[in-house]
């Protein structure tokens, strides 16, 4: 049996509903807009929020890039690319600068994005106050009253316990001086990239049924105390084992047989591009 899907899998009504929620999200930066999260052919928690945003936004002219923790080639990224390309036929790419639509899990690409691009991030827990307050009814009220002491309290507790702000990822941010927002589990390293980003950044949480956004050129400030300023991960003098890059986000990899530790770029496309450039400079073919 051959099933032919509508363009981009969804029926037009669904796409319209998700776009409406996205527009509202753009109009109120950092505010979590509820939407009717659809059943998807992948399980909730595997990027259904991001996938729904991507499918509702994509057009025939778009060029799509999907990354998972910086990698273009992980199983999750490949599967998402497959379903989108099968139901739309759009071009796929690994290259950050030619993509018009980038769906990502937990990383913002190293290359700066531009105004013509949209970044879609997959979000597991959209509510920055969830750890402190389990009730959605109450967190909504806390947002409306700008009562964010809970988010600060979490950071204070980390300082008391570990001596510094130990958020590994998902360090909360103030958007447009109004809403405190969970930036999805991107490393702190990527938080500064949200501030006055040229590209529109959309966040989709499929399981929690929320969409939120940082429109282009929006002020985004990471939460920090006066005497404990926000800091990104520091890799010291370590560099990528493959391409030699410094000052980028590095993955720590342990060779279990030899017990060695080495580092390589988390953004695989960035790493490959650097290698290709070196190859071209040396007179080879890309």
């Amino acid at each position, binding site marked *: 049996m051959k099933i032919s899907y509508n363009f981009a899998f969804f029926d037009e009504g669904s796409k319209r509903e998700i776009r409406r929620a996205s527009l509202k999200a753009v109009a109120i930066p950092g505010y979590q807009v509820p939407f009717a999260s659809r059943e998807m052919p992948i399980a909730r928690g595997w990027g259904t929020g991001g996938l729904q945003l991507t499918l509702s936004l994509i057009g025939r002219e778009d060029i799509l890039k999907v990354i998972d923790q910086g990698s273009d080639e992980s199983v999750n990224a490949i599967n998402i690319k497959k379903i989108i390309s099968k139901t739309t036929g759009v071009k796929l790419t690994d290259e950050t600068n030619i993509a018009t639509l980038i769906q990502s899990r937990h990383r913002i690409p190293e290359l700066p994005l531009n105004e013509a691009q949209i970044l879609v991030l997959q979000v597991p827990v959209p509510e920055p106050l969830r750890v402190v307050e389990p009730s959605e009814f109450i967190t909504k009220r806390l947002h409306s009253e700008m*009562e964010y002491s809970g988010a600060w*309290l979490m950071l204070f*507790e980390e300082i008391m316990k570990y001596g510094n702000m130990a958020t590994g990822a998902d360090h909360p941010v103030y958007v447009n001086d109004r809403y405190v927002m969970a930036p999805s589990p991107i490393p702190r390293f990527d938080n500064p990239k949200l501030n006055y980003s040229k590209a529109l950044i959309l966040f989709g949480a499929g399981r929690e049924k929320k969409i939120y956004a940082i429109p282009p050129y929006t002020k985004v400030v990471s939460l920090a105390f006066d005497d404990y300023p926000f800091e990104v991960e520091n890799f010291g003098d370590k560099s990528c084992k493959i391409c030699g890059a410094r000052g980028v986000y590095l993955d720590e990899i342990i060779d279990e047989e030899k017990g060695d530790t080495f580092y390589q770029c988390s953004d695989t496309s960035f790493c490959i591009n650097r290698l290709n450039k070196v190859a071209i400079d040396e007179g080879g073919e890309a």
Partner: protein
Amino acid sequence: METKISYFEKPILKVKNLTKQYGDGCESCLRVDSNVLIKNYCPHCGTVYACKDISFELHKGEILGVVGESGSGKSTMLQCLYFDQEVTDGEAFISSYKNGETNIFKESSQAKRFLKNNVLGKVYQNPILGLKMEFSSIGNIAEKLIAAGSRKVCDMESRGKELLDRVNIPLFRIKEAPKNFSGGMQQRVQIAKALSNNPPILLLDEVTTGLDLSVQANVLDLIKQIQRELGISMLVVSHDLAVIRMLADRTIVMLDGRVIEEGLTDQILEDPQNAYTQELVHSLI
């Protein structure tokens, strides 16, 4: 000279006709001369009148006691004043807020939040309501300070240590979560939290109920000491007359949601006028 007198005369908190009811009321219970109510409950429509026309004033540095049997509306009144519940009707004014001319019950939820964070402190009967049991004790105190606008960790840490020391929590346990503490210790952490940003008004709801006698005495001592040293005005709700006798300068007696008697604490305990108050005082062991 005149300004000084009016300053002293102006109460820090003024409550006028506070009313809280659950249900809309019906023809038979809303009539002015109605006598259908069973205690504070209307058997026709099921409406409960938790607080009816409660008015009182609280002055600077004063402790006002509120006594009454369980179900008389004491706690509901405190919940209304701390915005945990919305009032049905009535007004309240705080002298330091907008010159004491604005009814705080009619303010926006943001303004109420501001008052809660900056002007009021509340100690609940049950520490679970006032503390975050999973967070450290010092974190609990910091929460209130953060809410009041503090953004310096070292300041909050030293203030937290000072307060916890004050309420006799050993300093080596301040990073522990209150869930590991005994009931008396939890209550003392709660008091420290409520005091952290020096609120001019403190609401205490049955703070010593359920504590054993020596801990009770400890907590009462602490409250008295704080009031003397910091000049904080307090509203102390208790059904325990001994607590009221020890703490309160003036007392109001509540029954079925109404204030039935008010006056100096000694006067009420020695020479009660109302039949119910007489019964209450005579039942004091």
